[in-house]
């Protein structure tokens, strides 16, 4: 039997020694070569989620609906004064939380990619980027489900979005990249320090209240305005929402800056993940 073409070499710190260009080539080819495994793992989790479950993927809709109900209640009793908006408040909240949800869902999935698969990592050799890719695709599916819910809500409130709404999914991509980027770094660190994921999830949860998710950017006083002004997330979320409601992005230059920031974070984190995960994966 002739020996197969596959070859492998293992050395200490081999990925960091690869050099800039070769490292990127390996990262990308690693993902391309493992596409079938990503599909299989995706398929596994889809099947597993639908078995022995009444609602299956519909669970994605439960949390935003409960969220809206609470915000509505707070607004109704006069505790929450969300500021002006062009659409009914429930729709505004749903839109805000859906967009925020893209960031958080992808972050949480990416952050748990190594620790949730410790058993697999210890028993089989494969590119661990696969786990992040699979988790992100899984999260994207729930994002898609939430977009459907959003479309239904628009129809329910009789609001017709602008034609530019077709580009709405594209505006979610920078949020997805930012979430995945931060998540990848957290996944490496949380293998070493287990409470890292909890710390970051809590911090990001608090961050939501300092970001115009459930209120308009002009709500609140100057302190809040200063706080939200410096966060790229404000512009990424605002941009996506503007595109759907008013058809334009209010401050395109700042938005472009925020998008570049998200992409830089993603690319940097991906590289850091690729270089360092080998060292920590054995502790997962």
């Amino acid at each position, binding site marked *: 039997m002739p020996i197969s073409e596959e070859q492998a070499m293992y050395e200490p710190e081999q990925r960091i020694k690869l050099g800039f260009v070769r490292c990127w080539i390996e990262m990308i080819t690693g993902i391309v070569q493992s596409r079938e495994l990503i599909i299989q793992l995706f398929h596994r989790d889809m099947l597993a989620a639908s078995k022995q479950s009444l609602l299956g993927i519909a669970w994605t809709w439960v949390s935003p609906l409960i969220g809206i109900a609470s915000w509505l209640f707070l607004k109704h009793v006069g505790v929450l004064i969300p500021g002006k908006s062009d659409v009914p408040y429930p729709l505004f909240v749903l839109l805000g939380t859906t967009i925020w949800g893209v960031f958080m869902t992808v972050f949480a999935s990416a952050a748990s990619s190594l620790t949730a698969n410790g058993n697999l990592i210890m*028993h089989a050799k494969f590119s661990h980027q696969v786990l992040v890719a699979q988790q992100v695709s899984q999260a994207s599916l729930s994002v898609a489900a939430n977009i459907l819910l959003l479309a239904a809500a628009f129809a329910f409130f009789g609001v017709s979005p602008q034609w530019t709404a077709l580009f709405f999914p594209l505006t979610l991509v920078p949020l997805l990249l930012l979430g995945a980027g931060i998540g990848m770094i957290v996944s490496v660190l949380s293998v070493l320090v287990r409470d890292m994921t909890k710390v970051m999830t809590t911090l990001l949860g608090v961050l939501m209240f300092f970001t115009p998710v459930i209120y308009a950017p002009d709500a609140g006083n100057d302190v809040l305005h200063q706080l939200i002004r410096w966060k790229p997330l404000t512009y990424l979320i605002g941009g996506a929402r503007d595109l759907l409601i008013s058809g334009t992005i209010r401050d395109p230059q700042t938005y472009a800056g925020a998008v570049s920031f998200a992409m830089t974070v993603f690319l940097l984190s991906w590289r850091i993940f690729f270089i360092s995960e080998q060292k920590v994966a054995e502790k997962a």
Partner: protein
Amino acid sequence: MGDSCVLTVAGVSKKFCATQPHSMYYGVRDVCCNILGMTADTNRLRPHEFWAVDEVTFTLKQGERLGLLGGNGSGKSTLLRLLAGIYQPDKGRIQVRGRVGALIALGAGFHPLLTGRENIFLNGSLLGMTTREIEQCFDQIVDFAAIGTFLDAPVKTYSSGMYVRLGFAVAIHSRPDLLLIDEVLAVGDSAFQNKCIGKVLELNRNGTAIIFVSHAIQAIERLCRSGLLLQQGTPVFQGEIRDCIQRYSNQLAQENLLDAPQPAPFGLGAVDISNADVFEEGSPSKNRSIPFGKNFVIRFDYDFLQDSSHNTQVRVWIRTQDGRDVQRLTFQESPFNGEQRYGNVKVHRMQRSGTVQITVLSPRLFPQSFRIDVAIVPMDRSIHLGGLANAAVFNIVPPPADDRYFEYGNTTVTDFDYVVAVD
């Protein structure tokens, strides 16, 4: 690497950290180094670190079969994981040509809720097979696993044997050039084990190189031609499999002597048994590692704490380390009913206290570790007046430079003769 070489391992080492806080600290430090674009210093030990595998070097050609031997914690599984690419080495280099099949945990990645059919595809992809490859050998996998109508049932309903069969079947059909097997053949019934070994040998005939890790020496001997013996991560012997097994057995035997179970008195406590020992006859150093076939002496002191009007019998059991009876040696103070009815009954009068010395002549005990239990029993009642379990431990070792074949682990013994002396 030569043309037919599938694996080259050069000075490979792997370290681990013994304490969790240090492990966390070093991990974070190393990751930070990498984030800043620096390489972490991996080739020296920091406080609380140890080498789990230390400077291992060997090559493996197509069709070769290597057995990894060593006690618990000797680094066999770590080495296997290094070869499989699951762990990253801290020193040295591993080069692999061809596809590696790692039978480290069968059914890795099986999801309990998915059916056998769904899991075959999942597990196959983890082993590096494409969906097309899996489809092509799907029927063979199902045939080999013999899971019948359970193919479309969730694997959580499988028996552990079925689970392992399916995992093995997938792994074996990934057409590996190098197959790493870690203990997994120990699971499953003997029929399936034989089927697996048959399949592994069939792959080997077609050129697959095999590395096999097991504590089952017989299985290693059957599967492998050469062996590598590890002791605390360091390779201590590399060569022909029988030599390697012999070294390993000797090493195990020494460890057994050092780690002997505590003697435990039993019975009524009317007799005290002490200073039990077993050694090679005529050995001035009272060597407890007795060469195969050589006479050995069992000796112990006895002391009747109460006056005994009984006629007594002394019993000595030779047992294997796992407690199986190999032989019982007895002698009596008086023959049955006061008459010498049985020709082979050894009669000795015992004092109130003294020493018993039994010389076992030309014993056919196969090389391994044994222990003895001693008891003094009245002739007319089935109670123990006094006894000592785990009284002494000894080893039978293969004679040096002897090319006789030993079936390790067996204890087949014919009745052997012995001489008793009582002071």
